[in-house]
């Protein structure tokens, strides 16, 4: 590869290994899409099977879910800024924006846990009916992904602090940004298919 090309190829794509990792991760995301599709399908099939427990329209409220959506969407945006900084080789802004991303993610998680506790308190638990089981598992799987993402990104930030930007670290950061955007997309589906529809029906 000529030096000219090397300048234009982002750092994370410069080694074959980096390219393979990124391709592998895209394929993994395809598998994740199938995983979430299955959960959405399960949710759709079990929709309305609430037995004796509260209806979703009685519990779902717009405010908190809107705040959660805002937090996660913003975090996706700040994550994008972080990658932009990485492309320009600026380590410090990269770290700052990543930390902001994680804080927003933590905020999202906090509200989600609060939501869940609230519903449980109102008598809608994992055990109470097929509908609520599918709700908790769908939203919970997303929440679990966010949690793992936060832990993983924290480790990466430490690595960047220690090593700076190399083809390996930048490839790792790029991959987690893909993951983070993916979780954002899934959340948009949860927001519309679960909360918005659940509030109306």
């Amino acid at each position, binding site marked *: 590869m000529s030096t000219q090309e090397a300048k234009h190829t982002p750092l994370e794509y410069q080694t*074959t290994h980096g*390219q*393979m*990792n990124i*391709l*592998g991760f895209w*394929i*993994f995301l*395809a*598998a*994740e899409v*199938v*995983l979430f599709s*299955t*959960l959405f399908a*399960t949710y759709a*099939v*079990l929709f309305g*099977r*609430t*037995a004796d427990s509260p209806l979703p329209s009685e519990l779902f409220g717009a405010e908190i879910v809107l705040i959660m959506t805002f937090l996660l969407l913003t975090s996706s945006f700040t994550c994008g800024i972080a990658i932009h900084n990485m492309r320009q080789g600026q380590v410090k802004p990269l770290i700052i924006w990543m930390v902001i991303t994680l804080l927003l993610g933590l905020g999202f998680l906090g509200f989600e846990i609060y939501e869940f506790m609230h519903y449980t308190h109102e008598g809608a638990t*994992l*055990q*109470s*009916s*097929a*509908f*609520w*089981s*599918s709700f*908790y*598992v769908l939203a919970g799987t997303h929440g679990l992904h966010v949690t793992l993402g936060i*832990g*993983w990104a924290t*480790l*990466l930030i*430490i*690595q960047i602090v220690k*090593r700076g930007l190399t083809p*390996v670290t930048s490839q*790792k950061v790029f991959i987690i940004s893909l993951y983070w955007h993916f979780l954002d997309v899934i959340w948009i589906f949860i927001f519309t298919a679960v909360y918005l529809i659940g509030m109306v029906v």
Partner: protein
Amino acid sequence: MKLSEFFVTGEPLIYAGMVAIVLVTCAIVFLLTYFKRWGWLWREWLTTVDHKKIGIMYILSALAMLFRGGVDALMMRVQLAFPDLNFLNSQHYNEIFTTHGTVMIIFMAMPFLIGLMNIVVPLQIGARDFAFPYVNALSFWSFFFGALLFNISFVIGGSPDAGWTSYTPLAGAALSPGPGQNFYLLGLQLSGIGTLATGINLMVTILKMRAPGMKLFQMPIFTWSTLVTCFIIIFAFPILTVALALMTIDRIFGAQFFTLTGEGMPMLWANLFWMWGHPEVYIVILPAFGIFSEIIATFANKRLFGYKAMVWSMILIAGLSFLVWVHHFFTMGAGAFVNSVFSVSTMLIAVPTGVKIFNWLGTLYKSKIQFTTPMLWSLAFIPSFVIGGVTGVMLGMAAADYQFHNSYFLIAHFHYVLIAGTVFACFAGLEYWYPKMFGHKLNQKLGKLSFWLFVIGFHITFFPQYFLGLDGMPRRLFDTAPEWFTLNFISTIGAFGMGAGFALFVLNIYYSYKTSPREKTGDSWDGRTLEWATPTPIPHYNFATQPTVKELDAFHDMKKRGETTYDESKLKPIHMPNYSGQPFIMMGLLFFSSFALVFEWIILSAVFLVAVLVMMGIHSFDYDDGYHVEVEDIKRTERQLRGLNDEHTGS
């Protein structure tokens, strides 16, 4: 929990099994200690990331599982040989057919084929390893520990007994209390992680690591079948992951997905299971098609007929495999329209499959057929599989399926496709690539004897079962009625023929190890594809210099032009990954976590899970870049293997 509840008690057969397990374990420990092989075991095998060694471990485990599943099968056949034999009681019989099915599909067929892919695919595309060798080791150990978890249910806690399909509500907590079903769920979950990872790994390997010049439509047909299989794995396995997780949450945490209470929906399980399960069938049959295609072309000494049609038909089969799952339960009452749609889509699969059959026949046309053992398996596959295939179309005709469903007609059909397809392919592939793996061929005479025993036994076992089905004998019946005695008895005789064939096959491994002449060239069968271009034994870096590929049947054409893949003037240091003990330990911890969850010891399970996460975190900080094999070392190895002593040759 009392100890007497922890261990399975009360069955003489299981006590015998326990004694056997203890004895074999002692023997292995003794031998390893006596020959001072513990270090060797750890350094060379448990920590390896070399795709060839991992492949061998896959195949060895799969053979062990074939033995276990086979013993299950023989026990069932003994019980069914005579009415009221009372060899197994109902409960024990139920456990055995459940483990037989699960072991054969999940822990035998898939790992066997994945093992062959591990060994062969990188060699066929001229690569030095997988895209992610470390992940490959993780995959293997996840399969290994998943299989271990499933198999210990036999002595600890009790085996699952709800059938390999585990239909709810039967398999739910209400109707199947106890740890048995949890073993099924967590054993499959654990090994499923590995399968998905292998799917991604192989796909990246094939897409990114092909030898320079090799276009997609110049890939050997087995590599193509692997690529298509990976596609199915990636889109089907997450469905299983979810289905298993939901049932686990149902059983252990009291959720209501598949329950009869809380307005749960038991039928959802059947749908999710078969949305994975049908593609799964093609996961185990497409690689088999690939293996047969390689072997038939090699021993017909002719190019594969209709290569492109073969590839496209596999792609078509893979696509259709996701659109037919309802045919496993036409009798659920989804209505005539739904059944019609799935009936037609099911029968459509016969078209690409038929094309493949005719293409194999076309390959034989104007060829020169050598009847080696791998070729015999491949030839026997064609007519046997056709019987399985046409009865499959009959089952696909939904209106008729109301009579075939849940009967021995179905049993006969899927054994005809899975044994004649997958099992024959495993034997054929193992015999074919055996010299590449171990440096010597399997004895042909013993091999042929075991082939005839197995194939004749197979037809005697399963052909009568079509008629039992037509006479109304349902599957999973633990005892036969006198009216079905004759055919059942014949079937049992056949099963012992298959058992003898398998025993002879294993014996042949030992006999050949002792007596077979060692391979000198790497090209044992006058092969056509790149794996035969490497010397035997294969150096750990596979190819000293990467070949440039210009056509299909790359090695065949190279030989015609008098070229080899080795060019001493182009040697460069080769980058190789380091071995690591982490995959073994990480999956071992996950095994303990799953084991604790089986008994619903949730805190203990969580502790082990956290340990796994910590290890993953530690691995994230590990910037191990591997090492380089120096040119001098490569030169020395290659010269010795290729018998080039003169300083000047080869350059």
